[in-house]
């Protein structure tokens, strides 16, 4: 006997919630504070990616990681930052205040993704000399994002 209409609703609600959680689909932000919250969690993810890359670059530069390992780690950092940027960009800013927030954050994210992309390429090529310089760029972008977090908490 198939579930009746009333019994279906809670089952589907739970399944949908678990499914949404498992695939982490992005929900819209309907208020300034919700949008700001999303912006802050995006910066956390971007900072994490940049710092992972810095850490990896430092260790790789000192010969403490294999080329394969560093390569994978850099690729993952870039993917994380890109995904965070894409998630954030897909959310409609609910008002003009949020527009300004987005205008501030977008370039910071773009810079981060760009640096991580270059880091990935350089690591894969084994070009350890450039790693230090790029790691310094990553540090700068990380600090900028941290400042953004401080300003908007």
């Amino acid at each position, binding site marked *: 006997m198939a579930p009746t209409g009333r019994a279906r609703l809670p089952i589907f609600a739970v399944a949908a919630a*678990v499914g949404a*959680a498992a695939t982490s689909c992005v929900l819209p932000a309907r208020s300034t504070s919700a949008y700001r919250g999303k912006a*802050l969690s995006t910066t956390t993810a971007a900072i994490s990616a940049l*710092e992972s890359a810095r*850490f990896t670059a430092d*260790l790789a530069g000192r010969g403490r990681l294999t080329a394969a*390992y560093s390569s994978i780690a850099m690729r*993952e950092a870039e993917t994380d930052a890109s995904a965070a940027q894409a998630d954030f960009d897909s959310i409609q800013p609910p008002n003009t205040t949020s527009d300004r927030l987005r205008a501030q954050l977008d370039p910071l994210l773009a810079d981060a993704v760009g640096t991580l992309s270059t880091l990935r390429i350089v690591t894969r090529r084994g070009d350890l000399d450039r790693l230090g310089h790029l790691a310094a760029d990553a540090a700068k972008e990380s600090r900028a994002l941290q400042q953004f977090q401080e300003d908007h908490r």
Partner: protein
Amino acid sequence: MKKSLQITLGILTAIGGMIDIGNLIGNTEAGARFGLSLAWALVLGGLTIVLYANMAGRVAAVSHRATFDVIRERLGPRVALVDLGASVLLTLLTTLAEIAGVGLVLELATGVTYRIWIPLAAVALWMILWRSKFEHMERVYGTAGLAMLVLLFAVWRLHPDGGALTHRALHPWRPPHETVYAYWYLAIAQFGAMTTPYEVLFFSSGAVEERWTTSDLNVERANVFIGFPLGTLLALALMIIGAVALKPRGIGVAHLSQVGLPISLSLGRTGVWFFLFGAFAAVFGAAAEASLSTAYSICQYFGVQWGKYVKRADAPVFFRLLLATIVVSTFGALIFDPIKVTLLAIVLSAAAIPLTFFPLLVVANDPDFVGDRVNGRFTNLVSVALLVVMALMSVATIPLLILTRGNT
């Protein structure tokens, strides 16, 4: 001499068997986000698995009955079926995550994408489960998993501030940017990572596979009271690594590669190789345990012959189920994000646990099953208290999953 060797190997197996991809990612992430503020959940989980695995092992050694066998008999087929459904779903998800985890470890070691390693790992898993003797298989990956002790060395070489860590562990604190929902969600995840039902199902079935009797209860106790706490220590080491080396840098753990970075910092390339080798053995072992547990529980529910302790021809359904489990999990591993699946599985474990542990508690007190080796008063007191905790966690899991949107 042989007996002491058995005990040693039993301990090694327990250590090697405790850490899987869920622990590697989940325990480290908890450290990276909350420092040692969630250590209590991990320790509580460790205590729970020690108590309940001991019960399962004792029941199996004395009555030669494995856990799922007992669940249907005592709780009836309907409740046992619900339990079976939840259990099979969990062990399938876990097998999926572990097979993918093997791929992730090999990817880090070789640079070749994990998706290529997944089918190879699945084939290797099947060949080993099909051909090798249970004891042999268990001891090889259990011993190899000892390489995970590198985690303890890594912690030592990171020179953590012991006083500060202890203070944080004893005075849990939630960072302001983390929600209270996230804290409790991760608390349940730490607990769930230590108490995955497949550990108990596998341990009790393994006891029957190895033909344990009452004279093996010393081995059983060594496994449980030395091996599992040491495994908990390794999980704690992961949390400390996250707290000491990743948290200050603002690094959150979403990939296995991030877990190895602090080890590289403290022990260099050699440390990383030990880590990868140990992780390979531990995760591969977990894949074997989880896939076996799926087949064990289904067979034990129906009373059909299971196990590697009989001729393959005498247990055709068991091996068919094992193959189906590996095939289904392999396809899943190629499609879904293994990290997300892992983290979902450990949280759902926490939700499903009371169903497995309650009948075990009753049976471990039943002279019909354990003779005069029933639970002591203190064991019962603590076990009942933990069961209440588990029931509360069970109820809170789905709402927290929704409220934290899967911890994103």
